[in-house]
C-alpha cells in the first residue's frame, strides 16, 4: 500500500468570476494525506476547501498540478472510476428512492449480487443505527438521520478515502457534538482515510489527526492539532485558531531555539521562541502570546516580566478575562479561577498594579508577512 492515500502536488484551480476576473480558488497547494489518517481542511468560507475536495473526488480538474490517489496519477479520471466516496454538504440523497435503494445504489453500480447487496446495505445501516428505516424516503427522516444515510451510502462502498464536506454543518449543536464523536469512532474502527472539510476550529481540533489551515486558496500550516495551536507558524494561524496577543518588534539576537526581540511599545527586549521558518537577525517580526499563557503575579524579578495595570476584568465562570495595560500596550490575559471564591474578581481590581510574566516558550516569534 502506498504511504499516501491522497497527494496534491502544487495544485492550482482557477475560476472565472462572474465579473470576469480570474480567481485562484486553490493556489499552489501541496498536501500529503497518509493512509488511515483523519485529515481536516480548516478555513473560513471561500478559502478553497470544497474546491480542493472536489478535485480529489474528480468533479473538478486542476488547472495546474496533479492529484494522486494511492500513488496513481488521476489526471482526468472521472469520479466513477476513483476509489473515493463523498458525503455531500447537502447530503444529495436521491429523493425518489428509499433509504435502502439509496444505500444500495453504489453496490448496484459495482454489479454486486442481490444477496450480497442486501447483506452489505443492512450492515451499513446497522453501523449508522438506521436499522428499520430501509423503506422510508429521505424526506421522511430528520436531518441527523439523513446525514447518516449519506454516510452509509458512501461507506458501503468501502472506499480507500472518504471525503466529507462540512457533513455536520446543517445539524444543531448538540447533535453535532454527538456526531463528531461517532464519526471519529467510526473512522478509527474502519481504518479508512477521512478527509474532512470544516470551518469550525473546535471540530477540527477535536477530531483530526492532522489539520491543514487554509486561507485564500493557500495552505497556511499543516500539522497536528497540538502543533497548530501551540506552534502556529504565522500570524494568520495564531489568530484563526484560538486567540493571541500580538506585539510588533525587531529581532536583536537569534539562535535556533531562542530569539530576543526589541518591542518599542514596551521599550524592552522580550525573549521568545522562533516559530516561523527563515527568521533572520534584525528582521521586523510579531511576538505572539496566548491569553491563557500569560502569568499574572504580585511581584517578580524574572525574565520577560513587565509591570502593568489592570484595565478591566470579566468573570466567565471557569476563567476571568482580564485586560492589562502596559503603557499603551493592551494585553488579554485569561486567568483560571482555581479557587472558589464568592468575589472571584476581588483579587484584581481596576487600576491595580500587577506583574506579567511572558515565559519564553510561550512567546512565539513570527514573521511579519
Amino acid at each position, binding site marked *: 500500500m502506498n504511504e499516501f492515500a491522497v497527494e496534491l502536488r502544487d495544485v492550482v484551480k482557477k475560476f472565472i468570476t462572474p465579473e470576469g476576473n480570474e480567481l485562484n480558488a486553490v493556489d499552489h497547494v501541496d498536501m500529503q494525506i497518509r493512509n488511515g489518517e483523519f485529515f481536516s481542511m480548516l478555513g473560513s468560507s471561500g478559502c478553497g476547501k470544497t474546491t480542493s475536495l472536489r478535485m480529489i473526488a474528480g468533479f473538478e480538474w486542476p488547472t495546474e498540478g496533479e492529484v494522486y490517489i494511492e500513488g496513481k496519477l488521476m489526471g482526468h479520471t*472521472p469520479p466513477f472510476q476513483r476509489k473515493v466516496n*463523498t458525503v455531500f454538504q447537502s447530503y*444529495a440523497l*436521491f429523493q*425518489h428512492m428509499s433509504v435502502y435503494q439509496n444505500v444500495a445504489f453504489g453496490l448496484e453500480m459495482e454489479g454486486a449480487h442481490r444477496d450480497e447487496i442486501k447483506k452489505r446495505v443492512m450492515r451499513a445501516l446497522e453501523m449508522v443505527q438506521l436499522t428499520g428505516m430501509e423503506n422510508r424516503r429521505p424526506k421522511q427522516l430528520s436531518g441527523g438521520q439523513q446525514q447518516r444515510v449519506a454516510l452509509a451510502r458512501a461507506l458501503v462502498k468501502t472506499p480507500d478515502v472518504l471525503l466529507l464536506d462540512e457533513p455536520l454543518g446543517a445539524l444543531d449543536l448538540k447533535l453535532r457534538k454527538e456526531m463528531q464523536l461517532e464519526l471519529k469512532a467510526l473512522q478509527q474502527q474502519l481504518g479508512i482515510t477521512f478527509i474532512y472539510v470544516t470551518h469550525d476550529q473546535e471540530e477540527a481540533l477535536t477530531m483530526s489527526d492532522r489539520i491543514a489551515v487554509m486561507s485564500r486558496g493557500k495552505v497556511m500550516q499543516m500539522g497536528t492539532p497540538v502543533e497548530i495551536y501551540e506552534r502556529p507558524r504565522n500570524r494568520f494561524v495564531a489568530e484563526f485558531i484560538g486567540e493571541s496577543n500580538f506585539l510588533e518588534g525587531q529581532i536583536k539576537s537569534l539562535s535556533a531555539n531562542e530569539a530576543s526581540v526589541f518591542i518599542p511599545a514596551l521599550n524592552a527586549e522580550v525573549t521568545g521562541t522562533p516559530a516561523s521558518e527563515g527568521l533572520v537577525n534584525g528582521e521586523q517580526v510579531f511576538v505572539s502570546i496566548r491569553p491563557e499563557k500569560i502569568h499574572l503575579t504580585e511581584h517578580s524579578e524574572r525574565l520577560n516580566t513587565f509591570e502593568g495595570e489592570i484595565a478591566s476584568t470579566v468573570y466567565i465562570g471557569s476563567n476571568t478575562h482580564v485586560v492589562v495595560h502596559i503603557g499603551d500596550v493592551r494585553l488579554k490575559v485569561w486567568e483560571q479561577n482555581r479557587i472558589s471564591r464568592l468575589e472571584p474578581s476581588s483579587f484584581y481590581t481596576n487600576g491595580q498594579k500587577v506583574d506579567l510574566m511572558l515565559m519564553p516558550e510561550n512567546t512565539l516569534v513570527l514573521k511579519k508577512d
Partner: protein
Amino acid sequence: MNPHRRSLFILVATVLVYTFLYAPIVGLILYSFNSSRTNVTFEGFIPSFSGRVVMEGSLVKSSPCGPFHWYCDLAKNADVLEAAGNTLTIAFIATIVSTIIGTMAALALQRYEFKIKPFTQLSLYIPIVIPEIVMGIGILTLFSQFFGWFNGLLGLTGDARLSMGIVTVTISHIAFMVPFVTLVVQARLQGFDKAYEEAAMDLGANEWITFRRVTFPMILPGVLSGALLAFTLSLDDFVITFFTNGPGSTTLPIYVYGLLRRIITPQVNALSTVWILIVFLVVLLLQWLQSREAKPQH
C-alpha cells in the same frame, strides 16, 4: 370596502368567471343531445329508443341510441374517424419527438455555457410570441419551396412528388411545440441541484446511468407537464395545420371547420364533447401521476 361588500364582489366575480369559462362548455355538451337537427335552439332531448331513426321535420323523435343519437351518428361517420385517427397519430408522434428534443435542449441550456446561449434562449420565445398565422405561412412557404426544388431536382412526377400531408403537419407541430416543452422543463430544472448527479457518479454511475437512474426520474414530472402541454397544443392546433395539411391528412379541427361551412348538426357537439372528455381524462391521469411522484427537490 366593508367586508360585506367585499364578499359580494368576490361572489359576483366568481360567478362571472365561471359563467364565461364553463357556460359555453356546458351549453355545447347539452346541445349534443339536442333533438333538433338544425341545432339553432335546444328543442329537448331525443325522447325514445326505436329500431330506426324517426324524424319529424328537422326534429329527431326516436333513434336506436335514444338521446345519444348524435354520438352513434358520429361513430358511423368515416370522415370523423379518419380525422380523429390523423389527429391522434400526429399528436402522439409530435409529442414524443418534441418532448425528447425539448428536454435535451433544456438540459443543455442548464448545464453548458456557450457563446450563443443568450441568443438560443431568446430564440425559444420567438415561435411562441409571433402570430401563429405568420408561422403557418412561413412553414408553408418553406415546404413548398423545398418540395418544388426537390421534385425538380429528382424529376419526380405525379404521385411520386413530395407534397403536403401528415408528415408535414407532424414536422410543423414538432417545430412549434419544442419551445413550449423546453420552457416547461427549464422551469423544473431551476431548482435542480447538480449535487444529485455528482453523488450518482461518485457512487460509480457513468453519465448515462446517472441520467437514467437519477436525473430523468427527478425531472420526470416536468417532462410530463411539458409533454401534456405539447399534446394538447397539437390536438387542437388549427392554424398551422391548416397551412401544412394536404389530402388525407385532415385533422379534427380542420374537419370541424369544414363542417361549419356547410351544416352544423349536433354531431359537431357530440364530437366536441368526446374530445373534451378525452383531454379531461388525460389531465386527470397526469395529475394523478404527478401526485404520486416525489415532490420537486430544492
